[in-house]
C-alpha cells in the first residue's frame, strides 16, 4: 500500500465524478457516495500510517510536461493532514446529508464539496509547489462556487466574488514566490528547493517566503486580506465548516509549515509573519465582540485562531501551529455544525433572536459547550494544550508577543461564552421556529465533540511525530497565566451575559466609538470597496476613455483627414487644377469676373491647362528645380 500512497486522494475524485454523473438521481444520497470516497481515503491514509510512524518518507514523481513534474510525497505532516481532512470531510458530508434536506442543486453541491476535499488532499500530498498551487487555486474555485451556492441571493454572489478575488490577490503573491523559487533554484520540487536554499541569496529567500506568505495571507485570511472570510458565511453551513476546519484556510498554515526549512533562513519574514499574526489574532477577536450573527462570530474566531497559528509559525513553532490546526479543526467543525443545528432549530442567524436553545436541543447544547470550552483554552480540553504551546513559543521569542496573544485568548474566552450564554441560556427571544435536527446531523456532532475534548491529550506524541523532536518543556508560568486569562474571560462573560449583572448595552454605550469601529470591521471592507469602486474601476474608466478618445481619436483624425483629402481632391480637380490656371493667370488679367463664371467641363480649359502645365514644367526645369 505504501507504494501507492499517491492514490489516497483519488477515491474522492472518483466519487466526485460519479456524483457529477449520477448526482441528479441520487439527490441527498450523494452524501453517502461522497462519504464512501472520503472514508476510502481515510482508510488508505490509516493503512500507510504505521509505515510513516516507522519513519518512512516516500516520494513519487511523474513527468507532467517537458521538465515540469507532478509528484506526491508522504511524510508525517502530510499524513496528519490527510487523516484530518478525510476524517472531517466524512462527517461534514454526513451532516450535509441532513442539513441540505429540501435544497435544490444537490448534485452541484456534493460534487463541489468533494472537489473541495480532493483539492485540499491534493495540496497536502503534492511534492512540489506548483502542484500545490494548482490545487490551491482549485480550492479557490470551489470556495467561489460553494460560497455562491445560493447565487440567486445577491449577497451570496457578492461574497463569492469577494472570496475569490481577495484570495486571488494573495495567490498572485504566492505565484511571485514560486517564480522566485524557480528562477533561483531551477526547480519546483520541495526537496530540491530546500537543498538549494543553502546557496540562495538571503534576499531572495526572504522575498520568496514573503511571497508565499502573501498567498497564505489570502487563503488563511490574515490581515489585511481577512475580509473575505466573514462574508463567506453566505454559503451553506457545511461549507463553512469545510472552509474553516478542514480545507482552504488550513492550506495556508500547512504551506508555511511545509516551507519551514526555508522560513528558518528568513528572519525578516518571520517577524513579518508574527506581526501579521498578532494583528489578526487580536483585531479579529475584538470584532467578534460586537458580532451578532452566530456564524460570523465563529468566523471572527477562526480568524483569530488562525492568527495564533501564524504567530506560531512565525516563531518557528511548527508543532504548536500544527497542533492548534488539528484541535481547531475539530472544535471549529463542531462549532459550525452546531451552529448549523441551532440555526436549523431557531430559524434565524441572529444570536439576539435566539436564546433558550439548551432546552430545545440538548445534544447540540452539550457538544457546542465542549467546543466552546475547548476553544476558550480551558484545560483539559484540547484547545488549551495547543494554545499553550503557541504561547510558550511566543514567550520564547518575545514576551510582548505572548502578552498580546494572552489578551486575544482572554477575548476568545469572553466572546465564546458570551455567544454561548446568549444563544443557549435564557428564553427564546422571538417566535421564530425551525425544525428539529435529524440523526445525520447529530451524529457528527457527537463524534466531533469527542475529538474536540480529547485530541489535546495526544499533543506530545503528535508533535513528536510531526516535528521529529520532543516538545520543549512547557513553561508553567505561561500555562498558569493562560488558564487564568481564559477563566477570567469566562467569568466576565458569565457576569455580563450569564447573570446579567452588568448591562452589556451600557458598556457598549460607554465605548460607543470603539463599538462602531468594530461593528464596521475597522472600515477595512469599506476602504476596499471604495478602492475597488473608485480607484480600480476609475482606472478602468480612465483607460477606456483613453482608448476611445485618445487612441481612437488619433485614428479618427487620420480617417477624417483622409476623407477630407479625398473630398478636397475632388475639389482640387474641379477647382484647383482648373482653378490654378485661373488663379495663376488672374495675376496677369484684370478681368477677374470673367473667371468667376467659369464652370468645368470646358474643353478650352483643358487646353489652357495643358499650356499652363507646359509652362510650369519648363519654368521648373529651367529654375533648376528638376
Amino acid at each position, binding site marked *: 500500500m505504501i507504494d501507492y500512497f499517491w492514490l489516497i486522494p483519488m477515491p474522492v475524485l472518483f466519487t466526485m465524478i460519479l456524483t457529477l454523473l449520477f448526482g441528479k438521481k441520487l439527490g441527498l444520497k450523494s452524501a453517502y457516495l461522497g462519504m464512501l470516497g472520503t472514508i476510502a481515503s481515510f482508510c488508505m491514509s490509516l493503512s500507510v500510517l504505521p509505515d510513516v510512524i516507522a519513519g518512512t518518507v516516500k516520494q513519487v514523481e511523474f513527468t507532467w510536461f517537458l521538465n515540469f513534474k507532478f509528484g506526491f510525497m508522504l511524510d508525517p505532516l502530510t499524513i496528519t493532514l490527510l487523516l484530518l481532512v478525510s476524517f472531517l470531510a466524512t462527517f461534514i458530508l454526513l451532516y450535509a446529508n441532513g442539513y441540505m434536506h429540501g435544497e435544490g442543486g444537490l448534485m452541484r453541491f456534493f460534487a463541489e464539496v468533494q472537489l473541495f476535499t480532493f483539492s485540499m488532499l491534493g495540496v497536502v500530498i503534492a511534492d512540489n509547489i506548483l502542484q500545490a498551487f494548482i490545487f490551491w487555486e482549485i480550492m479557490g474555485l470551489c470556495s467561489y462556487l460553494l460560497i455562491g451556492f445560493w447565487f440567486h441571493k445577491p449577497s451570496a454572489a457578492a461574497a463569492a466574488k469577494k472570496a475569490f478575488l481577495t484570495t486571488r490577490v494573495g495567490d498572485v503573491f504566492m505565484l511571485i514566490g514560486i*517564480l522566485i523559487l524557480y528562477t533561483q533554484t531551477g526547480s519546483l520540487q520541495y526537496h530540491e528547493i530546500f537543498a538549494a536554499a543553502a546557496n540562495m541569496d538571503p534576499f531572495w529567500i526572504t522575498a520568496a517566503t514573503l511571497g508565499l506568505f502573501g498567498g497564505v495571507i489570502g487563503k488563511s485570511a490574515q490581515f489585511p486580506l481577512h475580509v473575505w472570510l466573514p462574508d463567506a458565511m453566505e454559503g451553506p453551513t457545511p461549507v463553512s465548516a469545510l472552509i474553516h476546519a478542514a480545507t482552504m484556510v488550513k492550506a495556508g498554515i500547512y504551506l508555511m509549515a511545509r516551507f519551514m526549512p526555508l522560513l528558518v533562513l528568513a528572519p525578516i519574514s518571520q517577524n513579518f509573519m508574527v506581526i501579521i499574526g498578532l494583528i489578526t489574532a487580536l483585531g479579529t477577536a475584538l470584532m467578534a465582540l460586537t458580532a451578532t450573527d452566530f456564524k460570523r462570530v465563529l468566523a471572527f474566531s477562526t480568524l483569530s485562531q488562525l492568527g495564533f497559528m501564524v504567530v506560531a509559525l512565525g516563531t518557528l513553532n511548527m508543532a504548536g501551529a500544527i497542533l492548534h490546526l488539528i484541535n481547531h479543526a475539530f472544535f471549529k467543525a463542531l462549532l459550525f455544525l452546531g451552529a448549523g443545528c441551532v440555526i436549523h432549530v431557531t430559524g434565524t442567524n441572529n444570536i439576539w433572536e435566539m436564546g433558550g436553545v439548551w432546552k430545545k436541543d440538548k445534544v447540540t447544547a452539550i457538544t457546542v459547550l465542549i467546543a466552546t470550552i475547548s476553544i476558550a483554552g480551558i484545560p483539559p480540553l484540547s484547545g488549551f494544550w495547543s494554545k499553550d504551546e503557541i504561547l510558550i513559543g511566543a514567550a520564547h521569542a518575545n514576551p510582548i508577543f505572548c502578552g498580546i496573544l494572552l489578551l486575544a485568548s482572554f477575548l476568545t474566552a469572553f466572546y465564546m461564552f458570551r455567544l454561548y450564554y446568549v444563544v443557549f441560556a435564557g428564553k427564546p427571544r422571538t417566535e421564530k421556529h425551525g425544525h428539529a435536527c435529524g440523526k445525520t446531523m447529530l451524529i457528527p456532532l457527537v463524534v466531533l465533540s469527542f475529538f474536540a475534548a480529547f485530541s489535546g491529550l495526544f499533543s506530545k506524541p503528535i508533535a513528536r511525530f510531526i516535528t521529529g523532536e520532543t516538545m520543549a518543556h512547557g513553561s508553567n508560568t505561561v500555562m498558569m497565566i493562560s488558564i487564568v486569562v481564559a477563566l477570567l474571560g469566562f467569568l466576565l462573560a458569565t457576569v455580563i451575559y450569564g447573570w446579567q449583572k452588568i448591562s452589556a448595552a451600557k458598556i457598549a454605550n460607554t465605548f460607543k466609538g470603539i463599538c462602531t469601529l468594530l461593528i464596521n470591521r475597522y472600515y477595512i471592507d469599506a476602504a476596499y470597496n471604495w478602492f*475597488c469602486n473608485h480607484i480600480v474601476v476609475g482606472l478602468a474608466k480612465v483607460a477606456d476613455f483613453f482608448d476611445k478618445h485618445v*487612441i481612437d481619436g488619433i485614428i479618427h483624425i487620420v480617417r477624417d483627414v483622409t476623407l477630407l483629402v479625398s473630398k478636397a481632391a475632388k475639389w482640387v480637380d474641379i477647382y484647383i487644377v482648373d482653378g490654378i490656371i485661373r488663379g495663376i493667370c488672374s495675376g496677369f488679367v484684370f478681368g477677374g469676373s470673367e473667371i468667376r463664371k467659369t464652370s468645368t467641363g470646358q474643353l478650352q480649359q483643358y487646353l489652357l491647362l495643358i499650356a499652363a502645365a507646359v509652362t510650369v514644367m519648363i519654368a521648373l526645369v529651367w529654375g533648376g528645380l528638376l
Partner: protein
Amino acid sequence: MNHLLTFILFTPLVAALLVFLFGTTTKRAKWIAFAVSLIPLVLSVFALLGFDWTNSQLQFSVLIPWIQDFGISYYLGIDGLSMPLVMLTTLLTTLTTLFSFDVDHKTKTYFTLLMLLETGVLGVFMSLDFFLFYLFWELVLIPMYFLIIEWGGPRRRYAALKFFVYTHVASLIMLVGIIAMYFVAGRELGYYTFNMIEIMQKVHFASSFQYLVFPALFFGFAVKIPVVPFHTWLPDAHVEAPTGGSVLLAGVLLKMGGYGLIRIAFCLMPEAAKYYALPMAILGVISMVYGAFLALAQDDMKKMVAYSSVSHMGSVLLGLAVMNVNGFNGAIYQMFAHGLISAMLFMLCGILQHTFHTRRISELGGLANRLPRLATFFVFTFFASLGLPLLAGFVAELLVFLGAFSVYPALTLVAMISLVITAAYYLWALQRAFFGPYRESLEVHHPHDLTWYQSVPLTVLGALVLFFGICPAPILNVINVSSQYILQLLGGVL
C-alpha cells in the same frame, strides 16, 4: 502523403466553391460547409499523428518552383510552431461552421466566406515562401471584411472599415519590410528568392539593416496580435462581427500576428529581436495590464471579452520578448490555448446576443436561475480564461511568467496585476449577469437553453480546454522542439 498540406490547404477552397455552387438552400449550404470542413480537420489530425516530435525541421514540406525569375515557389511545410495553429484553425472552422447553423441571412455567402477564410489562415500558417505568405495574409482580410460588413452589428461599416484599413496598412508596411529583405538577401546570395528558409539559413543581415527593418515587420504583426496601442480595431471588429466571425477572428486571426513575429521577424532578424526585446516586453506588459483594465470598464460582454483578448495576447508578446525556452513555449501555447478559450467566449457571447438581443451586462441579471446550462458554460469558460489551473490557459500563463520573471522580474510583477484584474472583471460580470435574482423583464425574449449545434461545439472545446490543461504534453512537446530550435537560431541569448 507528400501533398498532405496541399490537400489541407485547398480543401476549404473547394468547399467554398461547392457551397457557392450547390448551397442553394440554407440547409444545404450549412451541411455542405460542415461536411467538407471536416476533411481538413481529419487531414490535420493525420498530420499530427504523422508528425515527428523529435524533429525540429520542417515536415510534410512541399517545394515546387513557381515563378523562378523572382524566386517564388510554392513552398509549404509545418513544424512545431505551426502544427498547433493548423490544428486550431481546422478545428475552429469546423466548430464555427456548426455553431453558425442559425445564420439565416445569405447563408450561402456566409459559409463560402468562412471557407475562404480558412484557406487564407491555413496558408499563412503553412507558407514558407514570403510571397505565398503575403498572398494568404491578404487573402484573410477580404472574407473577414465582408463577414463583418454584411452580418455585423449596427456599427459594422465603421468596424469593417477600421479593421480593413488598420490591418491593410499594417500589412503594407510589413510588405515593405519583406521586399527590403528580399533585395538585401538577393544581393547577398547573388540570386533572388522569396524562400524564407533559404534566406534564414544562408543570409545574415547586417545589424543596421535588421534594426531598420525589424520595426516595420513588428508593426505589421503587432497590429494583428494586437499590441497596445495598435489594438483599437479589435474591440470594434469583434463587437460588430457576427459570432462566427469573431470566433475565428479571436481564435485564429490574432494568432497570425504572433506566428509571423516568430517565423519571420525573429527567425530572420535575430539580432534586432534581441535589440528590441525590452521594448517589446514593455509593450506586452502594457497590453496585458491596460487591456485588463479596459475590459473591466466594459458593460458590453462581447467588448469585455474582446479586450480580454488584447490582454491575453499581450502575454504572447511578453513570452516571445523574453526569448527563453519557457517564454517561447508559453507564448506559443498561449496562442493555442487562447484560440480554444476565446472561441468559447465569443460563442457564448453570441448565444447571449441571440437569446436576449442584448449583451449589456447591466441589462442582464440572474441568468443562472433560468438558463443553468448556459451559465455553467459561462462559468467554466470565464475561469478557463482567467487562468484556472488544470485548464489550458494556466499552463501558458505560467510558462510565460516563469520565462519572463527570470529576465525582467520587475516587468513581470507589473504584468501580474493583470491576473487580479482579469479575475475581477470576469467575476464581476458573472455576478451581475448570472447571479442574483432573475430579471423577469428578460422573459419577453422567451429564452431557451442551448441548442444542439450550440452545445456540441462548446462541449468539444470545453473538453479540449480541460484536456490540454491537464495534459499539455502532446502539444507542448511539439512546440518545445521548435522553440529550442528557434532559440538556437537566436544565438542563445540566455
